[in-house]
């Protein structure tokens, strides 16, 4: 992780995520990132204490198992489409994808 945060980086991320924020808000994100970086430093400092420990990926120590491949009832097409406001011929209609 880069340790220096600049506003251009944040602008880049807003484009990637397609989420617009104003200049003041970019400053807020910058401050928050700096705080997160300070948390990273805490974790790094614990390297020696933790290097031999096993990671916790599941709190309750469950193991991966396969369930039976059984076909179960699923939602009807009309139900699936009921949450979108534009449909056509059983499909979800979006605005045009290409410019």
């Amino acid at each position, binding site marked *: 992780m*880069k340790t220096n945060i600049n506003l251009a980086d944040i602008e880049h991320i807003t484009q990637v995520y397609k*989420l*617009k924020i104003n200049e003041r808000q970019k400053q807020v*994100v910058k401050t928050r990132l700096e705080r997160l970086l300070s*948390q990273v430093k805490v974790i790094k400092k614990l390297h020696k204490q933790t*290097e031999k420990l096993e990671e916790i990926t599941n709190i309750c120590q469950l193991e991966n198992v396969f369930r039976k491949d059984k076909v179960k009832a699923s939602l009807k097409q009309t139900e699936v489409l009921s949450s*979108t406001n534009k449909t056509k011929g059983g499909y979800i209609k979006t605005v045009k994808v290409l*410019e």
Partner: protein
Amino acid sequence: MESLYYLTIARAHQLLKSRAISSVELTKAVLKRINQAEPKINSFITLTADLALKQAFRVDKKIKNNQPISKLAGIPVSIKDVFVTKNIKTTSGSKILSNYFPQYDATVMQRLLSSDAVILGKTNQDEFAYGFTTETSHFKTTCNPWDLSRTAGGSSGGSAASVAAGEAIYSLASEHYDSIRQPAAWTGVVGFKPTYGLVSRYGIIAMASSLECPGPVCRAVEDVAICLEYITGYDSHDANSLKKTVPKYSLDLIRPIKNLVFGLPKEYLSGGIESGVKKRVVEAIKVLEKLGAKIREIKLLPAEYSSAVYDILYAAEVASNLSRYDGIRYGYRVSKGKDLNEQYFLNREVFGPMIKYQILTDLRSLSGGEFDKIYHQSLKVRRLIKNDFESVFKKVDLIIGPMSPCVAFKKGFYKNGQYLSSPETDRLKPLVNMYSQPPTLVGLPGISLPCGFVNGLPVGLQIYGPLFSESKILQAAYAYEQATQCRKFKAKIK
């Protein structure tokens, strides 16, 4: 006659079974109370009064026909809006889901429905459960029934306030680290977070999946026990769900706590804790000692370790969970975009500022190549914390402390898309993190229950324990509750 809307689950069940009251009567009394109190409290985003009355009517018919009923049957409950509910609007406090009517029920909702619970509606919360005052909700700010100029806490502020104000007999809430219990503490009710994996997360609108946990907000410890018996249990829809036999928590409440050893971390009562809160917690500890429990001072790992792990795991989980809101399949859809790219931009505009900050912060941190390494190292620190708790729980049965270092905050703490920062909040924040982040990170169960007041505002006592120590926690909490009058006070809504 006692006010029906202030009944406990246990008492309401007794009255229903003996036919002293009907479920329709009880439901109407609660709905009337909602009509009176709601303009001042703002607990609910959506009310389902018609549905509630239909369900109540059905239960009354069962009682009339001498059919067996569950302990939750016919009793009005409010549901945090983070749980998806079939054909009932589900927003998670966000404008982006303001028109979302789910096609299925969360498992916990399904369990309540099959127990014949009476569903009153969906309660207010911080947007996507991110916040601690319910002020980040797109819809409204929930007020504290004990003092309307204060918040009810969060993120489950609506759930807690609805129970405290008599707008529901109990509520179903959820938390990442203290979102059930902190609002319960601030509004003078009981909040419980079960062991991670004991109650299914299926149907919780996802934010940070490895931390999310549903749990009840009630008026009494016994009600928590009853509620847990119905919502706990394996669910094949939740990959982290545990196959465990559900104990009869409510039948196992009365146990002498004479031999219980409580650990009290020294740091819990030092630093920036408000003196009034400290006083109440110290008094509560003395009550437990009088009941024969032993208190032992303990030392936990520095809280900054868990705080760092928490922030990093949260960062990794939130950004990916919130990327699904594109406005195409469901949720708020802006129709004026000239192409899909523009539509994404316009659509995401409707996220609240706090959520936008969180998404961007998370994404930026994830985008660096080194994050993967840091993430894995955080999971090792999580192990370190787990090991520490395991060794502490060899010496003590349960850990005790304050739920929150302060009483309810004044409203207006959230301004211009951010929580205000002051020397006072800087003193409080490390304690807030210290009380709940370490146990939550390793999935431990815990309770907050009323332990008195400071200037008329409720204070919460926290008790937590090892994985699956629900029974023991409830026994200790019940013993304390029975030995004091704390839970008996009701808010006078002015």
